């Protein structure tokens, strides 16, 4: 795409849209208000302008030569990142290199292509003192090494942000260390096993060639055998040990594990081969054994990598959650600190609307605190100096100061989240089923192998052993065991990139067939804010209403303020009186204005009988009348509008067989009205439900059906936790995030439809995988028993079956594929940041 900055194109902008002008930095269309006449460069936002200037000033224009550049505007948050310089941050995230530099890994938002790598790795040119910046594109992690004597990390963070990559401390640093060690060991094992397998194969080929021609001199054959044996022993001892360890663990726990048949096949091959080597007779199985070890290790490594790539996406969301808190220092100034830096004894400054960051005691201020995250209690609790508060609870009404008692991992909420984390490791019933099947499978295979050997041993013991070993190897149920976890893992990873965060495989299974779907109304079906839905009246009245509503604290006033924003500044209010439960009476711009409920206005102004049908177009809206100079002039209807995609989504879900119901705490008449708009019968709409009532409803349905509860948190938390599958929607409180099985970061109900369809498709892939691996194994077993394949062919066939399952899971259609981009989590981030600031 080209930037059209020729004068002719610019001349038409504003009059007729001939052509969109593209941003010089990111290539997106530039909004009309940002266009600069006659300028050679145009930008879609201030962030892009800054990034462009930085690149230009440092001679990094080459960035624009890359074919694939960023195609999203630079999002500037304007943070100072001062918490990055705090020593608590250092102890958590910063390590030392051998050269004495500080080193940190930061998770960057907005990384997606080669040009990002180039740009991030040029940071040392922008900031003297930064020695190295290396970006791992697959995981959006930047490793920064800098001299902390000459430059602060906060400056590096600001530089990264100005280039369009807001940095976040990466929470998985420690786990990464463990993972890296595992990876390196796995790769070493593969390398050693591969080298040994190839060399044993060379010796084996020489021996096979000898048998096929007129024979090899026995001294040389013997030499090759001993060499193979000498090579095989280290292969068994180092890389092959994994399987024996697994088999031993299986035996100890009396479970039939997949490593068991593998270990038996390996031992049988090695023992028989060793005996043949010593007695100088018959075949040695060393080639098959070593190749099997190598291929199995490669298969496992690939499987592990695939699973990790999928889980990474959802784990990174945790890196994006705000990690700061406001702390009052000795001088009384308030500073932002990383949550990890909080220590017992510090004083927290908690504003209204903030989440409290640590367990402690209130020292100043009176407020209401919402404890729902911890207790499920939705009614706010009043706190005053001396009252205990806990991390994760929401301070609602007024600022308070809190002295910290327990922070970080010690807090109640951290313990709660650990439980949630453990419960997410639950395994889908189908996973258990596959494992149960695998257990039976192993038992059957072992019995068959013994029978094959005993029956064949009467004629030809070594051929019988060959067949038995081939049987053990070819029926290795790797594919069967991998079928489910792999499909689930790939699907959840893909869903996470679509903004659907699925915490456990069992949720996918439960959603794959229709059941009862309970929807919370406020915030789930509706937008959870008051808007002006309808206005019957002349334009000139609007500024008068705005003037009166400007200072009102009533929830409906907010709707007027948003709807009439164009009339700011509003005319001056000479006098006004608020009547609780009625409305506002005032004098604006020389007029007597009355705004309020129909009855309130009727009692204060002349109302034509024709206009007395005070009924709103539907029950979910609140009517507000406006009288000017004693006569009714306008009627407004305000309400919480239903989301645009709600009706179509609910119809799609019902068409798929779901029984959809609304379960809300709002007034029953309102809930019924919303339900009617969505095509639901009154029986399917339950209003006025307390959190306890919601929980009871979920429990009552749960006896007979699978129940899916969808809500935005606080008052739904208990019901969400109790449902078969709980879904927390966009913008919900952390409570729903903590208790829900699934968390949607995209607003609206359309993601629900996508979720159900994806779940159904995922189950189809799983069933296909299981069926395929069973069929494969039956055929393989029959070939082995019939003596049609030797152990080497079996060793090659076995990993191939696993590979087909891997490919089937990867290419099976589950959720829509989207390119890897951390931006998928951006809406959630924005919401999280907004709720934290």
């Amino acid at each position, binding site marked *: *795409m*080209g*930037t059209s*900055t*020729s004068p002719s194109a610019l001349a038409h902008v504003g009059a007729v849209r001939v052509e969109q002008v*593209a941003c*010089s930095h990111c*290539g997106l269309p530039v909004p009309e208000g940002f266009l600069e006449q006659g300028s*050679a*460069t145009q930008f879609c936002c201030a962030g892009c302008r800054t990034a*462009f200037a930085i690149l*230009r000033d*440092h*001679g990094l*224009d*080459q*960035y*624009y030569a*890359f074919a694939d550049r960023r195609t999203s505007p630079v999002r500037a948050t304007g943070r100072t990142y001062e918490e990055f310089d705090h020593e608590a941050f250092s102890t958590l995230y910063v390590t030392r290199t051998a050269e004495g530099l500080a080193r940190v890994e930061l998770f960057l938002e907005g990384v997606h*292509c*080669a040009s990002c*790598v*180039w740009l991030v*790795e*040029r940071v040392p*040119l922008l900031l003297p003192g930064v020695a190295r910046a*290396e*970006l*791992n*594109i*697959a995981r959006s992690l930047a490793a920064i090494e800098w001299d902390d004597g000459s430059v602060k990390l906060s400056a590096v963070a600001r530089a990264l942000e100005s280039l369009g990559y807001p940095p976040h401390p990466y929470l998985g640093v420690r786990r990464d260390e463990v993972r*890296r060690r595992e*990876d*390196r060991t796995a*790769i*070493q094992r593969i*390398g*050693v096993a591969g*080298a040994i397998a190839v*060399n044993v194969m060379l010796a084996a080929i020489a021996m096979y060639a000898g048998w096929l021609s007129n024979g090899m*001199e026995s001294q*040389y054959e013997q*030499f090759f055998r001993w*060499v193979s044996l000498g*090579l095989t022993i280290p292969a068994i001892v180092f890389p092959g040990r994994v399987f024996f360890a697994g088999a031993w663990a299986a035996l100890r726990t009396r479970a039939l594990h997949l490593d068991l048949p593998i270990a038996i096949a390996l031992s049988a091959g090695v023992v028989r081969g060793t005996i043949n080597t010593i007695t100088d007779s018959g075949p040695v199985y060393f080639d098959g054994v070593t190749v099997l070890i190598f291929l199995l290790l490669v298969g496992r490594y690939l499987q592990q990598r695939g699973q990790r790539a999928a889980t990474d996406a959802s784990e990174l969301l945790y890196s994006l959650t705000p990690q700061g808190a406001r702390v009052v220092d000795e001088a009384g100034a308030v500073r932002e600190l990383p949550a990890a830096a909080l220590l017992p004894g510090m004083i927290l400054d908690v504003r209204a609307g903030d989440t409290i960051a640590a367990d402690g005691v209130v020292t100043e201020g009176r407020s209401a605190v919402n404890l729902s995250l911890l207790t499920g209690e939705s009614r706010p609790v009043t706190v005053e100096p001396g009252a205990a508060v806990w991390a994760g609870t929401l301070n609602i009404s007024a600022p308070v100061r809190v002295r910290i008692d327990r922070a970080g991992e010690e807090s109640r909420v951290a313990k709660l989240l650990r439980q949630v984390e453990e419960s997410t490791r639950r395994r889908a019933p189908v996973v258990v089923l596959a494992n149960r099947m695998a257990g039976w499978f192993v038992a059957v295979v072992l019995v068959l192998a013994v029978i094959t050997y005993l029956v064949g041993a009467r004629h030809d013991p070594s051929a019988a052993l060959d067949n038995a070993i081939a049987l053990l190897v070819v029926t290795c149920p790797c594919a069967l065991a991998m079928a489910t976890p792999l499909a689930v893992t790939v699907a959840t990873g893909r869903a996470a990139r679509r903004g659907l965060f699925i915490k456990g495989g069992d949720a996918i299974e439960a959603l794959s067939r229709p059941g009862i779907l309970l929807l919370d109304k406020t915030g789930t079906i509706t937008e959870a804010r008051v808007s002006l839905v309808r206005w019957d009246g002349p334009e000139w009245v609007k500024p008068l209403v705005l003037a009166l509503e400007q200072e009102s604290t009533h929830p409906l006033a907010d709707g007027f303020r948003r709807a009439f924003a164009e009339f700011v500044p509003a005319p001056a209010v000479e006098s006004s009186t608020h009547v609780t439960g009625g409305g506002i009476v005032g004098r604006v711009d020389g007029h007597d204005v009355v705004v309020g409920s129909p009855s309130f206005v009727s009692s204060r102004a002349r109302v034509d009988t024709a206009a007395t049908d005070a009924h709103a177009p539907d029950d979910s809206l609140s009517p507000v009348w406006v009288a000017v100079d004693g006569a009714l002039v306008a009627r407004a209807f305000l309400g919480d509008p239903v989301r645009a995609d709600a009706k179509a989504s609910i119809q799609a879900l019902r068409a798929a067989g779901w029984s959809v119901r609304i379960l809300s705490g709002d007034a029953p008449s309102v809930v019924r009205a919303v339900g009617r708009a969505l095509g639901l019968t009154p029986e399917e709409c339950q209003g006025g439900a307390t959190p306890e009532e919601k929980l009871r409803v979920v429990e009552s349905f749960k006896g007979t059906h699978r129940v899916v509860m969808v809500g935005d948190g606080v008052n739904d938390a208990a019901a969400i936790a109790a449902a078969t599958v709980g879904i927390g929607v966009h913008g919900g409180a952390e409570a729903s995030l903590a208790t829900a099985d699934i968390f949607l970061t995209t607003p609206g109900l359309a993601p629900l439809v996508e979720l159900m369809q994806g779940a159904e498709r995922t189950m189809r892939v799983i069933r296909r995988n299981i069926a395929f691996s069973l069929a494969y194994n039956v055929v393989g077993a029959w070939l082995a028993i019939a003596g049609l394949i030797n152990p080497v062919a079996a060793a090659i066939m076995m990993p191939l079956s696993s590979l087909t399952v891997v490919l089937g899971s990867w290419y099976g259609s589950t959720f829509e594929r989207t390119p890897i981009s951390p931006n998928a989590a951006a809406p959630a981030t924005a919401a999280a940041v907004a709720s934290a600031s």
Partner: protein
Amino acid sequence: MSILYLVLPLALVIVGAAVVAFSWAARRGQFDDLETPALRMLHDDDDRAGTSRPAPPTGDSTP
């Protein structure tokens, strides 16, 4: 053919050296990130700060 007694152990010594080298590289973390280096080779090396290129950034420069 008795040369085999010399050549084969020699070959194994070379293989052993290769395995040791590979393990060393793996332990040093050379295989930690297998994706980014492929992109890094696209970048030119003349990255001295201040060498501004006169070419104005205009996507594809069609007049």
